[in-house]
C-alpha cells in the first residue's frame, strides 16, 4: 500500500478507475491532479522505453509515462483519444498515458485485497491491491513503482 492509501479515511477510499491495455486499473484520487487530453510529447533521448517524453503543462515540463508499456501490456496505437492522468506523488509530477478514464469509485477499505504472489508476472510489482466492483476486478496501481527514476542519471 502506498502512504496515500494508508492515510485516507479508514472506511472508504476514493479511486479514479481507468482502462489501460485492456485492463482495469485505478489510482487514489488524492494523488490525481488533473486529467487532460493527449498531446504530442517531445521524446527524450536515452529514456527508458516506457517514458514517452515530455509535454508542456502550462509552462512546466511534464514527463509522460506510457502506462501500458510500463505495465508490460499490449500497447495500442497512439491515438488522439488517449488520456493523460496527471498524478502527483510527494511533489513529483508525471503524466500517465492511459486508454480511457472510466469512473470514480468509493471502495470500503476492507474490500481491498492484497494481490496474490505470482512471480511470473511483472505486473505484480505495480499493483498494490485488488478489489471487485460490479464483477470487474480493479487493480490499484502502486504509483511509487510506476514513477520514472528520479534524481539519478537515467540511461
Amino acid at each position, binding site marked *: 500500500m502506498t502512504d496515500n492509501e494508508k492515510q485516507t479515511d479508514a472506511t472508504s477510499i476514493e479511486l479514479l478507475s481507468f482502462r489501460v491495455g485492456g485492463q482495469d486499473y485505478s489510482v487514489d484520487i488524492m494523488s490525481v491532479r488533473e486529467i487532460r487530453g493527449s498531446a*504530442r510529447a*517531445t*521524446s*527524450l*533521448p*536515452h*529514456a*527508458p*522505453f516506457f*517514458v514517452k*517524453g*515530455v*509535454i*508542456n503543462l*502550462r*509552462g*512546466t*515540463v*511534464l*514527463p509522460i509515462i506510457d502506462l501500458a508499456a510500463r505495465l508490460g501490456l499490449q500497447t495500442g496505437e497512439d491515438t488522439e483519444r488517449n488520456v493523460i492522468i496527471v498524478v502527483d506523488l510527494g511533489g*513529483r*509530477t*508525471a503524466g500517465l498515458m492511459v486508454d480511457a478514464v472510466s469512473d470514480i469509485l468509493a471502495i470500503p477499505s476492507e474490500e481491498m485485497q492484497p494481490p496474490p504472489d505470482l512471480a511470473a508476472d511483472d505486473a505484480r510489482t505495480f499493483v498494490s491491491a485488488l478489489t471487485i466492483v460490479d464483477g470487474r476486478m480493479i487493480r490499484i496501481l502502486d504509483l511509487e513503482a510506476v514513477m*520514472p*527514476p*528520479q*534524481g*539519478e*542519471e*537515467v*540511461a
Partner: protein
Amino acid sequence: MSDPMAEIRASFFIECEELLESLQDGLQMMDDGDTDSETINVVFRAVHSIKGGAGAFGLDDLVRFAHRFETAMDEVRTGRFVPDAEAIRLFFACADILGDLVRAARDEETVSEDITGPALEKIDVLVGLEEEEEEELDFTPATLSFDLDIGGDLGGLPNLPDLPDLSTFPTASETEDEITEFSPVGGAKGFQVIFKPEDSLYASGNEPLYLFRALRDLGDISVVCKCSALPDLDHLNPDTGYLSWVVTVHTEEAELSVREVFEFVDGLCLLEISPLSGRAPAALPDLPPAISAPATPPKPEQAAPTPLVPSPPIIPDIEMPNAPAAPVVKSAPIASVSDDAEDEFSLSSPNATSGSTKTTGTPTQPRATVRVDLERIDRLVNLVGELVINQAMLSQSVAEAGLPPNSPVSTGLEEFLQLTRDIQESVMMIRAQPIKSLFQRMGRIVRESSASVGKEVRLHTDGENTEVDKTVIERLADPLTHMIRNAVDHGLESPETRLAAGKPREGHVTLTAQHRSGRIVIEVADDGAGINRERVKEKAIEKGLIPADAQLSESDIDNLLFLPGFSTASAISNLSGRGVGMDVVRSSIQSLGGRINITSQEGKGTTFSISLPLTLAVLDGMVVRVADETLVVPLNAILETLTLTDGDLKALGPETHVVQIRGGFVPLLDLGAELGYRSPLDSYVGGIVLLIGQEDGNRAALAVDAIEDQRQVVIKGLEGSYGRVPGIAAATILGDGQIALILDPMDLVSQASGRTKIRQPQHSLVG
C-alpha cells in the same frame, strides 16, 4: 514562524555579513591612505557591533576575538596608535578571522585557537597592549535566556524585559541592598549617571546589569533603581521597560570611559552623565517614565534608527533638556527634570560631543533596499518566463491567422513584445546583486596567497557595483579564486625579479567587472611577466599535448593553458600548479554560459577576461531540427555552421566519418543518431553541420537536418521533473507550445559514439 530565537540569530548573522562588508570597505579605505576619523570609526563600529551582538548570543570565541580586535581599533581611533601598512595588513587578517569566526558561529563550528591566537598576539604586540583577560571575561556571561515559553507570536522578538534575570535587578525593596553592596568608598572624583533604558534597548538584546558591571570596573559604584514608574501588575506591559537607574561612579577615569560603557546602547536609552564635582549628587531627579501608560506606547523602532546628532554646545532649550542624549523622545513627558540636573548636563554636553563621536551608520548613505525571499523572486522570474512563452505562442497564432503585418493586432503585439522584454529584464535585475561581495572575498585570497608565496601584492578592484545574477556570483567564486591564485603565484614575479625588471616591488592584480553589450565582463589582470610562450609550448610538447612540430599562433599558445593537465610552474607551490587548473576554470565558466580569453604581453602582464550572460534563465540558442524533433543548441558553443560537400567528408574506419575543415579534421556526429532518434543516414553530403567548440579545444561537427531559427529561449530545468538526461542540458517551450530540448554539446560530444555509417537497429527504445 518557528523559533523566535533562531530568527533573531539568523538576522544577527545577516547583519554580521553586512558589518563585515563595511569593515572590509573601511580597511580598504585606510589601506588606500584614508586616515579620516569617520573611516576608522566605521571599522571600529563594525567590530564593536559584532562583538555586542555576539555577546548577546553567548558566542564566546567571537566575543573574545572581537574584543581584542576592537581594543586595537580603539587605539587607532583615539590616535594613540597610527597604523602603518603592516598594521593594516594585520587588521585585514583579523577581519578575515573575524569573518571566519562569525561563519563558524553561524554553522555552529569552532575555529581553532591556532588561527586566532597568533593574530591576537601580533595585534597586541603591534598596538602595544597587554592582555586583558579580566575584561574579556566580563563579556562572556552576557547570554540571554530565550527558552521562556512566552507563547504566541511576539513579532519575532522575545520578551526581553520579562526575563527571569529580572529578579536580579534592583527593585524597590532591594535597592537598599544594592547600595550597600556597591557602597561608595567616598572620594570626590566621579560621575553620576542617570540611565533610563527605552524599550528598544531591551529589544536589541541589551541588559543593564552588564552595563553596571562594566561601570564597576571603572571604580566603586552605587546603584539606585527608580521603580516609581512601575504600574501594578494588572497594567504591566511585559514589553515595556519601566525602570530607570541612577548610578554614582567613583572613578579616576575620564568621562569618556564612562560614556564608552554605554556606547553600545547609544540612542536606546536616556543617558545623562554628570561629574560629581564635589557636590553631593543631585537628589534622584524624578524621571517620569518615557512611557506613562501602556495604552500609549511610543514606537521605539522609530527612535532607534535616528542617528544621534551631537547637539551644538549651547545650553539646551528648557523645553528639551534631554535633547543631546535622546532627541527622539520629544513626545515623552520628560520636561520635569530638576534644574540641577539640567545645569550639570549642559556643562558636560560639549565634553560629550567632542569625546565620543557618534556614528550611526556608514559615511555613505546606503540606498534603501528590501530583503526579499529568493523563492518569491524565482517565482516571479518563472512567471515572466511563462509570459514570454505565451507571447511567442500568441505571435505565432497571429502569424498563422494570416493577418497583415500592419494590422492593429500585429502592432499591438509588437508593443506587447517590447513590454514583455522590458519586464523580463527588470525581473532579471531583481535577482542581480552587486559583485562586490565576491570581490571582497578575492581580497582575502590575494592577501593569503601573497603571504604564502612571499610576494607583495596589491589588489585593485573596479566596477564592484556591477550587478550580476546571484547564482552566477555564487558559481563564480571558485573559478575566480583559482584565477586570482594563479595570478599571484604564476603571474607575478618575485619582488627581486620585479625590481630587476625595473618594476615596483609590489605586484598589482586588478579585478574589474563591467557590463558590455548585454554581457558581463570580468577581468583578472596582473602586471607580471606575462606568459612565457616558449616555455608553455615546450611544456605542452613535453607533456604530449601538442605535436612537436605544431605551428601555433600566440593566442593558440595562450590557450594551451586551458588544456587539462597543463601546468607551467616548474616548482609546485602550495597554491596552485597541481595541474588541475585552468581547464577546470574554463569548464565552470562555460557551464555558466560564459567564455574565457587570455591576452598576455611579455613583461607587461596577463589578463584573463570572462564574459558571462546576464542571466542564467534565458539562453541564446539556435533552433535546429533533426529526425522530426526540434532541439536548441546554445549559441555560445557553435563556432560556425556549414554545408557538407563531398570533398569535406572523409570516411574513417568502418563506422565513422571526419570532416575536413581548413586543413583540420573534425569528427562528424549525427545528432539524431547520437540522441537515439534515428540510425545513421546513408549519406551526409549536402547536409548541414554545426561546428561545436569544446572546452578542451577539441571540435566536433554535429549533423542536423535543418536550422530553423536563432532566438532567446527560457530555460526550464529537467532535473526537477524527470532527472538528468545525457547530452541534454535543459528544456524550453517553443512558440507553438511544444517542448524543445536544449542540447549540452560538451556532454553530448564526450559521450558520443561517432557512428555515422552502418545501419544500427533502432535504439531509441532501449531501456
